[in-house]
C-alpha cells in the first residue's frame, strides 16, 4: 500500500520529466557519455597511451576516426578514456560537495548563532575566482585526479551550502516545524526528519549543476597542468597538448572540446528538467 502510494507520486514526477523533451535529450546525452566511460576499454580501437611516430598528425580518416596527435596516439581512444577522468572527478566532486554542503547548510540555517561564522567562511572561499582557488589547492597538494577532485570540492562546497541553507531557512519557518517543536521534538529530530527531507529537491538540482561545473573546471585545471598529469588522457590535457598545433591539427582540440560541451549541455538540460519536474508548485 505504502509503496504503491509513493510510487504514484514518483510516477507523476517522472511523467512531468518525460514531457520535457530537452530534459530527456540531456538525460540521453549523459547516458551515452556514461556508457562511453564504462565501455572505453572495449570500444576504443587502440591503446590510448601507445605512441606511433609514423602516424603523427593524421587528420580524421577511416583508420583513425578522430585523427592522431603529435605522438601519433589515436585521438578517438584518448577521448573515450578521457570521459572516465571527467566523470570520475565529477562524481567525486558531487559526492563531497553534497555531503559537506548539506552538513554546513543545515547547521548554518538551523542554528543562527553558527550561521554568521559558517557563512562568512563560505563567503571568503567564494570571493576567490573559481579556477584560481582550484589551481592553488592543487599546487599545494600536487597534481593528480583525486587532488583535482578535492580542490574542486572545496571550490563548490560554498555554493551548495548556500542553496541548502536558504532551503533550511524557508522550511524552518514553516508551520509543520513549529508543530514538531510544540510536540517536543529535539533539534536533531527536527533537522533529520522534517528539514532534511524537504531540502532534497534543491540539493538534487544543484548537484547536476555542480557536476557540470566540475567537468568544465576539471578540463580547465588539466589545461593549465593542474589536473591528472600526462600521459593519462583527460579531456583537459588533450586540449592543452593540442593547443600548440591548433593551426595545423585542429582536430586535436576540436574533439575533446565537443565532448566537454556535450557533457555540460546534457547535465544542464537534465538539471533544468529536474528542477521543473520536482517542484510541486509547477503543476502543468
Amino acid at each position, binding site marked *: *500500500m*505504502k509503496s504503491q*502510494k*509513493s510510487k504514484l*507520486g514518483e510516477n507523476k514526477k517522472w511523467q512531468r520529466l518525460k514531457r520535457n523533451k530537452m530534459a530527456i535529450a540531456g538525460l540521453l546525452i549523459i547516458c551515452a557519455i556514461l556508457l562511453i566511460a564504462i565501455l572505453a576499454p572495449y570500444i576504443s580501437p587502440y591503446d590510448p597511451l601507445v605512441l606511433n611516430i609514423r602516424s603523427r598528425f593524421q587528420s580524421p580518416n577511416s583508420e583513425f576516426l578522430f585523427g592522431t596527435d603529435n605522438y601519433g596516439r589515436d585521438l578517438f581512444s584518448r577521448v573515450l578514456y578521457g570521459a572516465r577522468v571527467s566523470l570520475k572527478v565529477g562524481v567525486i566532486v558531487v559526492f563531497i560537495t553534497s555531503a559537506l554542503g548539506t552538513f554546513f547548510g543545515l547547521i548554518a540555517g538551523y542554528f543562527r548563532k553558527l550561521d554568521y561564522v559558517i557563512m562568512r567562511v563560505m563567503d571568503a572561499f567564494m570571493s576567490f575566482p573559481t579556477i584560481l582557488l582550484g589551481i592553488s589547492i592543487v599546487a599545494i597538494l600536487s597534481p593528480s585526479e583525486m587532488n583535482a577532485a578535492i580542490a574542486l570540492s572545496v571550490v563548490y562546497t560554498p555554493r551548495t551550502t548556500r542553496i541548502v541553507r536558504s532551503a533550511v531557512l524557508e522550511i524552518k519557518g*514553516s*508551520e*509543520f516545524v*513549529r*508543530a*514538531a*517543536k*510544540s*510536540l*517536543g*521534538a*529535539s533539534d536533531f*529530530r527536527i533537522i533529520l*526528519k*522534517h528539514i532534511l*527531507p*524537504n531540502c532534497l529537491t534543491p540539493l538534487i538540482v544543484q548537484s547536476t549543476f555542480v557536476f557540470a561545473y566540475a567537468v568544465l573546471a576539471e578540463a580547465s585545471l588539466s589545461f593549465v597542468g593542474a589536473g591528472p598529469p600526462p600521459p593519462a588522457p583527460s579531456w583537459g590535457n588533450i586540449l592543452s597538448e593540442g593547443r600548440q598545433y591548433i593551426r595545423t591539427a585542429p582536430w586535436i582540440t576540436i574533439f575533446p572540446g565537443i565532448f566537454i560541451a556535450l557533457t555540460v549541455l546534457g547535465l544542464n538540460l537534465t538539471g533544468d528538467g529536474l528542477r521543473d519536474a520536482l517542484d*510541486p508548485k509547477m503543476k502543468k
Partner: protein
Amino acid sequence: MAVESNALLRVNNLKKYFPIKAGLFRKTVAQVKAVDDISFYINEGETLGLVGESGCGKSTTGATILQLEKATAGEVIFQGKDVLSFSKKEIRGMRRDMQIIFQDPYASLNPRMTVTEIVGEPLDIHKLVRNKQEKKERVKQLLGSVGLSTEHMHRYPHEFSGGQRQRIGIARALAVEPKLIIADEPVSALDVSIQAQVINLLQELQQEYGLTYLFIAHDLSVVKHISDRVAVMYLGKIVEMTSKVDIYDNPLHPYTQSLLSAIPIPDPTINKERIVLEGDVPSPINPPSGCRFHPRCPHVMEICRGEDPEFKVYGDNHYVACHFLDR
C-alpha cells in the same frame, strides 16, 4: 484578579515584544509590542475564546504560552507551576500536557510524511508506545476518534482535503493526551460547511477527554458556539473578558460593542444599528498613549489619552479595561 481555585492555566501580566533590529551592529531600534501586559485564566474543562482582529497578538499569545516564542515578561502558570521558568527538559515534559492545533492545515503537516508518521511522531518523541504494533494500534485509534478511517494511514497530506487535514492535526495533538489545547484559528482556513464539522468534533473530544481549550479566532459567531467565556483583544491588550452570555448580551467595552454590531443577522427585516469604527488599527510599534483604543473610541474622554485603564472586575467575573465605565 480574583484567584480561581480550579484554574488550569493562569496568565499574569504576560508581555511579548519583538525587537526591530537595524544598522550595522543590529541595534534594537524599536519594539513591536505584540502582547502587552495581559492577564487571564482558564478553568479546567472550559473553553476560553480569544478574539480580536488580525495583528492584535492573539496568535502570539498562544505561541508564547506554549514557549514557541520566548516571553518578554510575565508568568504563565500551568497546574500551579510557572512554565516560563522551566528548563529545556521540563518544557519537553510540559508539551505532553499542552498542545496546539494550527490555523493552516496545509502548512502544518510535513508533506513528506505519511499520516501514520505524522500522528505517530509524538508517540515516538515521548516514548508512549513500546513497539511498532502498539504504535499502529494507537494511531488507528486516534484516527478513529477524529473521524478518519484506517485506510488513510499510509497516505500523504496532499491527498486529503482541508477538513481532513485539520483532523489529522487534531489527532496529532491528541496523541500525547494533553490537558490543554490551544486552538489557533483552527477553522478559519476551512470552508464554512466544514467549519461546523470540525467545531463539533472539537466539542465532542472535549467532552470525551475532558479537554480545556484556548480557542483563538477572529470570528465572533464561531467563538459564540464553542466558548464558555470570551476574552476580547485589541492591539496587544485584553479589553474585556467575561462569560459568553454576558459578552453577547451585555458588552461593556466600546470595542466589543462595535465588534458585535458587525455580526450579520440572517434576517433582513431586523434593522440593526451598526457601530462603524473610524480609522485603522494603530501600529503596535508605537501604540497610542493611555487607552490604546482611544483614537477610535466613540466615547473618548480626556483621561483616556493619558492614562492606561485598569483591567477591573465589574459584576460577576466581568473584566473590562475602560475609563468610560468609571464615570
